[in-house]
């Protein structure tokens, strides 16, 4: 790594990647500062992955530990899919933010604190018996105390804002410091401020002044000696934007309904962390999107199904306890063989659990969690941006196979953001289905010989009036039937229809050698951590591969063959071994597990350690 001495006497250090966390009181505007930083880092060509971490209390008492809100971002000159294991830079706006976030910081990392907020009252709220800025409690780090409150006040005084509004600008002061630290331009933020505050010139000027003051302070103060920079990454050419998983899922649903030439009806009951899908869709009615905020989770599921019966793309979204309530509706969807998309943004359970924290413990529920023999398609997105193609795929499979499809996301994917290469709508598959069959050829449960799907005939089609419902149906005619042999046949047909989808999905593909010592299998939001960990180990010369499953029911047709190419199989997941159990059950493979249920995604290091341990047990 080359270092350059700058004209102002400071050093300039290029780094391949950097992890920064903004933390403060929930009213301090840390989410905004963090996302602005992420925008600038993106626009300057680096790959950025972000994760907000906010309290479940809407407004916890100011200065309290419960009220700390954080935003972490990882930006790099290469592909990254995690927000970073441990921040190198922590910006802490008060003592509580310092206390909550300190344990995560890299040893030798930089802590920038707003020293003005380290008052006896605030220290007490953060359970500090004495001021950590005095003494050597923080000896392992480089602490940069800045009088942000006072410096901000001074910077914005000409804007003549109220004292409260003036104080609000200090997140932009902090942002200015961070932008200097990583040699990023101010101009895009100033342009954003002009747009955002076009109706409030005073706020625009004050925030801009605070931003510049922060930047200039770092540039001139002796305290700041080292400026870092991260070079642009090599990305596939194209136009990019940052998306969270929830945004990407919403866009995927809109795109798929559009390509199917059908109305999208999204029915949902508000629940963390899935609500943003509803918000995003509600804001886009002009795309032939109808959102229904229903009275409960059950209504959301069956209203979406009612919309599907009507020929629309019926979709619903939920999390944890909401999924439990939808299971009855899912049974009806399987029996009536109607398309339905359910996005389950997993959170810590059981019951209310930890609503704002991530987990992957609904896999069994997704695959098995219904009464009767009740198979449906289960997909999982691997990264925030991957929620777009997977939501699109969910709609494709739901329509083509006349089946409910559950797309698993999680709290980490939902709130995390990363760059998404904007697709050309013309490149998206055409999902329009054939017109209704001729009356003489129509029977409600007559199946396509290849897909085994029945025809989707919506009300309004003359001559094809028919009834469907939750009672067992006679094969072909769809008449209510209690016939023993018919039930056996229908149960097997429904199972065969879903199993057959394995022929219509991409084969399992590993990253790394097709044979070797170990394959690390993951699914869902663990992608980034596993990919990075496997990369590290492989660079050390071991034959380790990564297999990330996006199709969990049915599994890709070649999955058993792929797994058999390795001496060991490790399944890393944020539950107590649900995928591992499914794989062992299906393939009799002696997989071992790495299970973490702390409400947080894996750190790269954790996965790497497990791989190294297993390899240590496995001679080369």
């Amino acid at each position, binding site marked *: 790594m080359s270092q350059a001495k700058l004209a102002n006497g400071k050093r300039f250090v290029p780094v391949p990647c950097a992890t920064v966390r903004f933390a403060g009181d929930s009213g301090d505007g840390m989410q905004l500062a963090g996302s602005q930083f992420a*925008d600038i880092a*993106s626009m300057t*060509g680096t790959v950025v992955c972000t994760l907000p971490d906010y309290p479940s209390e809407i407004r916890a008492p100011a200065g309290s530990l419960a009220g700390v809100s954080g935003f972490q971002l990882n930006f790099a000159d290469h592909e990254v899919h995690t927000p970073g294991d441990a921040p190198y830079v922590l910006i802490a706006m008060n003592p509580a933010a310092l206390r909550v976030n300190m344990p995560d910081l890299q040893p030798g990392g930089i802590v920038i604190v707003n020293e003005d907020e380290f008052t006896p009252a605030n220290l007490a709220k953060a359970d500090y018996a004495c001021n950590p800025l005095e003494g050597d409690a923080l000896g392992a780090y480089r602490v940069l105390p800045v009088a942000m409150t006072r410096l901000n006040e001074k910077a914005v005084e000409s804007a003549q804002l109220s004292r409260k509004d003036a104080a609000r600008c200090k997140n932009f002061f902090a942002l200015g410091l961070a932008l200097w630290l990583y040699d990023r331009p101010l101009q895009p933020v100033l342009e954003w401020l002009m747009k955002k505050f076009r109706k409030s010139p005073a706020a625009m000027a004050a925030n801009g002044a605070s931003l510049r003051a922060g930047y200039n302070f770092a540039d001139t103060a002796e305290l700041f000696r080292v400026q870092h920079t991260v070079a*642009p*990454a*090599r*990305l*596939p*050419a194209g*136009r*990019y*934007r940052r998306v969270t998983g929830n945004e990407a899922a919403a*866009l995927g649903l809109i795109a798929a309904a559009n390509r199917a*030439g*059908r*109305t999208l009806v999204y*029915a949902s009951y508000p629940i963390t962390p899935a609500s943003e899908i509803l918000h995003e869709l509600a804001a886009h*009615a*002009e*795309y*032939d*999107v*109808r959102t*229904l905020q*229903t009275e*409960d989770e*059950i*209504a959301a599921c*069956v*209203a*979406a*199904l*009612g*919309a599907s*019966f*009507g*020929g*629309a793309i019926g979709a619903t979204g939920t999390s944890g306890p909401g999924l439990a309530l939808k299971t*009855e*509706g899912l049974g*009806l969807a399987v029996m009536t063989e109607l398309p339905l998309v359910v996005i389950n943004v997993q959170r810590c359970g059981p019951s209310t659990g930890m609503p704002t924290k991530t987990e992957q413990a609904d896999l069994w529920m997704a695959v098995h969690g219904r009464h009767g023999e009740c198979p449906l398609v289960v997909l999982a997105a691997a990264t925030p941006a991957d929620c777009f193609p997977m939501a699109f795929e969910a709609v494709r499979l739901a329509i083509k196979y006349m089946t409910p499809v559950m797309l698993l996301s999680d709290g980490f994917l939902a709130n995390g953001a990363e760059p998404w*290469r*904007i*697709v*050309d709508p013309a490149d998206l598959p055409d999902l329009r289905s054939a*017109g*209704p069959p001729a009356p003489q050829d129509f029977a409600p449960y007559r199946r396509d010989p290849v897909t085994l799907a029945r025809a989707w005939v919506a*009300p*309004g*089609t*003359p*001559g*094809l*009036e*028919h*009834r*469907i*419902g*939750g009672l067992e149906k006679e094969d072909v005619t769809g*008449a209510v039937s209690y016939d023993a042999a018919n039930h056996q046949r229908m149960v097997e047909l429904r199972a065969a229809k879903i199993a057959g989808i394995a022929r219509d999905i991409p084969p399992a593909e590993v990253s790394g050698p097709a044979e070797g010592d170990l394959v690390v299998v993951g699914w869902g939001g663990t992608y980034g951590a596993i990919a990075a960990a496997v990369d590290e180990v492989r660079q050390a010369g071991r034959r380790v591969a990564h297999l990330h499953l996006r199709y969990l029911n049915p599994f890709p047709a070649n999955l058993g063959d792929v797994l058999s190419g390795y001496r060991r199989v490790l399944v890393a997941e944020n539950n107590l071994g649900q995928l591992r159990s499914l794989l062992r059950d299906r393939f009799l493979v002696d997989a071992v597990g790495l299970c973490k249920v702390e409400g947080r995604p894996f750190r790269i290091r954790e996965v790497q350690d497990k791989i190294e341990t297993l390899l240590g047990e496995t001679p080369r």
Partner: protein
Amino acid sequence: MIADALECCTAEQAAGNLAQLTRADFQSPQEVKWCPGCGDFSVLAQVQNVLPRLGIPRERIVFVSGIGCSSRFPYYLNTYGIHGIHGRAPAIAMGLKCARPELSVWVVTGDGDACSIGTNHLIHCIRRNLDVKILLLNNQIYGLTKGQYSPTSEFGKKTKSSPAGTIEHPIRPVELALAADATFVARSVFADPAHLARMIEAAARHKGTALVEIRQNCMIFNDKALDDFSDRSARDEHWVYLEQGKPIRFGKDGGRGIAALGMDPVVATLGAGGVREADLLVHDAHSPSSVRAYLLAGLQPPDFPTALGIFRQVEKPTYDDLLTAQVDAAVAKRGRGELARLFAAGTTWLASES
């Protein structure tokens, strides 16, 4: 958009289809499996009588139901239909009607379905004024599960699950609907087919949620429930028909009526103590206030006759119309959505592979 994809029939075709529609067109090939003598037959017959009169092509009519004896209804009608899950029919109907506002959507439900497991959905459907027609077949018993008390069973009723008598006070569906600010609520009885048909037709022609409570028997588990209706002389004393704009009279030769003493109803006998017809309440279902409708809905034996007819019929925008208006407004304001514009919204940047 869906309508385009569906090759919806042309106006001429629709007119052609309509001209020929008769009751037989609405009879499905499925064998009707209710117990002989069940009140459900009467409702099915009147629905099949009314549907051809509505001027709606058969393919645009959808019946949605939940679970229970009455919820088998859609199978017996040759329209589109979906037999759903217990209590959820109004929610299924909501998704369907919002996806396809041009359809005529009907919900057939029972007292267990609508007033116990699905009460939530019923209330929310009504308060939203979703343009669906709800036929609530109330036999005050759980029939399909073989004779337990229902949420509308009278207090003290002895059933298999309440051998010592129920200790629950019944829900009264009409009052429940009025409390949810229903724009149309009526009550009829299976044993008066002409009245039943009038109520069903009025509901069908109402724009907004229309709830018709249909009192009926259960031959097997609650057969005597409506004996006082079958017996002509008892009927006059125990039932009162509401007619728009007319004084509310009942009894032999209409000799008695309902009057109000302050906020309370009283039974008045014409001629007794100088009571004249002008002293009786005059029925007005169109009153903006639902107070009088609530008073009439609450009349019950032994002190009062049970009222039949339209309690309330007022106009209010429907949920589906408002939803469509919001979609149209979004298109008018921002133009019809183009995916390319949607994808590139917000902060974007270009990367060129180096």
